[in-house]
């Protein structure tokens, strides 16, 4: 499903933190993990993951290291830092509360639409 790009823009960093909570991943694996874990629902420009990754690394929410590969280009693996884990926890709480609030409003609207 195609979601508004603005919706995805605001959540890319949190999505990255979320998929990295399962362990270290490299760029393309992160893209795939988001796609697969969303049940192929989230379609976004794969390139937009990299500025988000670099910003998270700059803010010390992620750390990275290069792993040489045989017969293919080296991979840059990203890992959540303790600071990143805290941010992810906060983001999850915020998201739960936010989506709950938005859900309540939409439920009310849905009732009105059905009644009307």
């Amino acid at each position, binding site marked *: 499903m195609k979601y508004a790009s603005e919706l995805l823009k605001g959540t890319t960093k949190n999505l990255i933190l979320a998929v990295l909570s399962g362990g270290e991943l490299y760029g393309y694996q992160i893209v795939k993990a988001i796609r697969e874990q969303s049940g192929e629902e989230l379609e976004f420009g794969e390139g937009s993951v990299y500025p988000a990754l670099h910003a998270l690394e700059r803010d010390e929410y992620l750390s990275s290291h290069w792993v040489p590969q045989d017969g293919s280009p*080296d*991979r840059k693996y990203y890992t959540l830092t303790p600071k990143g884990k805290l941010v992810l926890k906060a983001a999850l709480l915020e998201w739960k509360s936010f989506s709950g609030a938005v859900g309540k409003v939409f439920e009310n609207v849905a009732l009105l639409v059905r009644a009307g």
Partner: protein
Amino acid sequence: MKTLSPKLLLLVEQVVKRAQSGNEEQADDLRREMLSHFFEEERELLLQGHSQKEVISMVTQRFGDIEEVGKQLYMVQRRFEHLPLIGSLLYYRPVLMAVKLFFVHLLLFFLIAIVPIDYFFDRFLGKVGVWDFFVQFQNSFPVFILFFAGIGEGVVFAKGSNCKLLIEAFILSYVPILFFVFFSLLDDLFMKRGFFDASTFLVFLCIAFFQGLGLLIGLYFYKKLREKKK
């Protein structure tokens, strides 16, 4: 090692170019990461049975707007993410570097202006009897200073930059002075208040020439040193 198809290699370079941090280490890092991304995706799609042509089209489409990705990467690398307006203004990297160089030039002019060079010559060298030579030296002293300062700039600013960028930035850094000359020339032509001084303009030209020459020498030595280290 299997390499990427030329079209995808070009895509990698386009992303790196648009991110144009100007820092060679950052650019190399980004290039390696993009190579890995496109390589993995290309391999996966080929294994799924897509033709090379289809793969290129799919990879390009999936990656999204290169211009936007490059700009966002630049903003992150330059730490202007939270200042989008300034970030956009300085997206053209030589401008940022030119601003830095301009302030270095201002500092140098200030230092030259406060060095009590007259006193030094009068007090110590005037008595030696080689006065004429040193008067000449004194007159060209700022040029010597700026020549050596240029070498220093070349070495310092070359770190993590490329030659084209540095030369462009150096020329841009003199734009404010050229503006000053231009407006004083206009003033001289129309208002006739006598602000324009051709000799001052020539001095600036001379300074810019020697400083630029120093910068090129510094840049040359830095590159040689780097190659040796590699």
